[in-house]
C-alpha cells in the first residue's frame, strides 16, 4: 500500500514540477506580457495543485492536509489577482 502511495506522490509532485518548469520557460521565452503572465498562472494553479495533491497522502494528519490545501487556495487567489493586475497594467501601457 505504501508503495502505491509513494508512486502516486512521486508522479504528482514530478508532474507539478514539470508545470513549474514549463511556466518558467514560458516566462522567459514568451514574447509579450500577457502570454508570460498566462504561462505563470498555469504553474501556480496546476503545478502547485499537483504538488499539494502529491503531498496530501504523506501529511501526518487532517490538520496538516487542510493547511496544505489552504496554502494552494491562497496562492490561487493571490496568483489570479496578480495576473489580472499585471494584465490590466500591460493593456494600459499598450494603449
Amino acid at each position, binding site marked *: 500500500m505504501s508503495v502505491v502511495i509513494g508512486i502516486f506522490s512521486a508522479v504528482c509532485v514530478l508532474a507539478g514540477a514539470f508545470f513549474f518548469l514549463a511556466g518558467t520557460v514560458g516566462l522567459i521565452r514568451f514574447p509579450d506580457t500577457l502570454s508570460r503572465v498566462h504561462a505563470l498562472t498555469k504553474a501556480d494553479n496546476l503545478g502547485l495543485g499537483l504538488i499539494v495533491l502529491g503531498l496530501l497522502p504523506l501529511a501526518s494528519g487532517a490538520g496538516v492536509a487542510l493547511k496544505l490545501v489552504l496554502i494552494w487556495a*491562497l496562492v490561487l*487567489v*493571490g496568483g*489570479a*489577482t496578480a495576473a*489580472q493586475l499585471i494584465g490590466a497594467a500591460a493593456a494600459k501601457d499598450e494603449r
Partner: protein
Amino acid sequence: MTAGLLFDLMMALAVLGTAAWTLAARTQFAAVIGFVATGLLLSLVWVRLGAVDVALTEAAIGAGATGVIILYVVARLRGGTAEISAATPSRAQRALAALLAVAVGGVLALAVLNLPDPAPSLAEAALAGSAPLGLGNPVSAVLMAHRGLDTLLESVVLVFAVLAVWSMAADHRWGGAPGPVFRREESGPLSLLARVLPPVGIVVGIYIAWVGADAPGGKFQGGTILAAMWILPWIAGLARPPSITDWRLRLMIAAGPLTFLCVGLAGFAVADGFLSYPPSFAKPLILLIEAAMTLSVAAALACLIAGPPERRLPPESMAADRR
C-alpha cells in the same frame, strides 16, 4: 538518501544560478526579480538545513519586504542614468570586491567542511536552561531569555528605521500621510483581494506570532504578514494611512520596545535584574512582550513600505473621502 542529496545539489545549483543571473541581468527590473527568486530559493535551502525560523524570515523580509523596497527604488531611479553610472564602481573596484567575496566564501566553505558530524547544536541546552519559561521553541528561548538584550535592541532599531524614513520628507510635507495616495477601486480584482484576504491573513499572522513560543514562527514573521494585510487595502485605496503625527500610529510603533523595556526594568524589582523574568510569571510576560512586538513590527514594516509622507492632505479632501 541519494534522492535527498540530488535535491540538495539541484537547490544549491539553482541558488547559484539565480544569484549569477541577478548580477548579470541587463535591466534593473530583471535583477530585482532575480534577487527575489534567489531569496525564495534560499529560504528552501534553510528549510532543508532544518532552520525553519531562518527560512520564514528570509522569505518574508529577505525576499518579500526587501524585494518590494528595491522595486520601489528601481521605479524611482527610472531615467536617472547619470546618477546610476556615477555610483557604479569601476572595473578594478569590482574585481577587488569579487576577489574579497571569493576569499570570504572560500574560508567559510573550508570552515563548514571542517565541522564535526553531527554538527554541534545548542538547541537542547537552550531549552534545558529555559524550562521554567514554558517555551518549546529553542529559537524563541534564545531570543527572549538568553539573548533578550539583543532582541530588545533589534526592536528599537525598527523604531529608528521608521524615524529615518520619515525624516526623508520635505519640510512642508511633515505631518502628512506616508506614501503615495492610491485611487479608491470600487470593483476589480485588487479591490476584491483587499476585501477577501485580510480576514484570512490576519488570522494567519496572529497564529504565526502565537505559535512562535513552541514552533517556528514568532513576532517578526507574524508582524510581517499583518503588515502585508494592511498594505493590500492601502494600495487598493480602501484604507488610508494615518498622518505621521497621529499619536495612535506612533504608540503602535513604540508599543513593542516600550513594553519590552518596561518588563526588562521590572526585572530589577521582581527578579534577578534587567530583562530577567520571575520564574512563576515568565510565560505571561513573554507573551505580553511578543503581542506588543507583533503590533509594533506590523506598524513599523507597513510604514517602511509606505515611505515618507508625500503630500499633506488638505482638510477638505479628507472630508470628501469620508462621505
